[in-house]
Every structure is written in structure tokens, then in C-alpha cells.
């Protein structure tokens, strides 16, 4: 039962990542792609945490945290760059 629910959850997260990749490839303009990257990084973070639970090693959570901090930095610097005009 628990395994079934978790498998279903992983498939849903993977499907969400694929939808975000679709928007990343199709999205008109760089701004839509930046939104898709933001959402993709927010989908990957719980996937990393779930993989940490699956393998039972707490250090994997640190990767999710570091990834979250640095993708926030990347997205805000992208926005700042686009704000000042290309």
C-alpha cells in the first residue's frame, strides 16, 4: 500500500517535470523559459528529498537545500538582468 502510493507520487512528480520541460522547449521567449526553469527546480527539490528517504541518507537533503538556495539566486539574477534591458 505505502509502496504503491509512493510509486504513484513519483510518477506524478516525473510527469510534472516532463510538462515543465515541454514548456521549456516550446515557450515563446526567454521569460517563459525562465518561469519553466523556476517551476522545474521547485519540482526537483521534493524529488531529491524523496530520493533521500528512499536511500535513507540524510545528507541528500542538504543537496536539495543547496539546490534551492542557488536556483533562487540564479532566477533572481536572471530577472535582474532582464529588468535592466537587453
Amino acid at each position, binding site marked *: 500500500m505505502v509502496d504503491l502510493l509512493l510509486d504513484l507520487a513519483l510518477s506524478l512528480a516525473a510527469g510534472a517535470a516532463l510538462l515543465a520541460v515541454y514548456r521549456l522547449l516550446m515557450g515563446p*521567449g526567454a521569460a517563459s*523559459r525562465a518561469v519553466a526553469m523556476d517551476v522545474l527546480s521547485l519540482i*526537483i527539490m521534493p524529488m531529491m528529498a524523496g530520493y533521500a528517504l528512499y536511500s535513507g541518507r540524510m545528507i541528500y537533503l542538504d543537496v536539495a537545500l543547496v*539546490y534551492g538556495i542557488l536556483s533562487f539566486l540564479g532566477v533572481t*539574477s536572471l530577472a535582474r538582468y532582464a529588468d535592466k534591458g537587453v
Partner: protein
Amino acid sequence: MDIVTLFNLEDLLICAVILVAALGAVLHRNLLAAVVFAGVVSLAVSYLFLRLSAPDVAMTEAAIGAGITTVIFLIAVRRTEEVEREEP
């Protein structure tokens, strides 16, 4: 032991995403979009390293790829555009 159990479906999906995003980063004309694609490449590579049980490499990849490389690329794009505008 066939290839799919050796390297299961999710890993193959991640590899496909890496390939597609890398092709996008190389082929795209808009430099800002290319920077975004490069960020996605490092995101997927980081998750792949995590699944290959190398958390320290994944953490470094996340720090370098998602954070510092994006900022450096943006600075580089701005500098080159200034030069291009001055000498068409």
C-alpha cells in the same frame, strides 16, 4: 540483466532531458534562453549525480552550475552585447 534494469527508466528520462536541454543551449539564437537551458542542464545533471549516490558531487554541481555559472554567463552576455552595439 538487461540495460533497463541496469539503468532504470527514470535515469534514462533524466539523460534525455540533459541531451535536449544541452542541444537547446547550443542551438538557440537568444542568448538569455541559452543561459536558461544551461541552468536546466546543470539541474538535471545534479539530480543524476544524486541518483548515482554521489551527494558531494551533486552539491558542487548545483552550486557551480545553477548559481555561479548563471551569474557569470549573464555578465558575459551583457559585456559582449555592449561590444556588439558599439561595433556593428
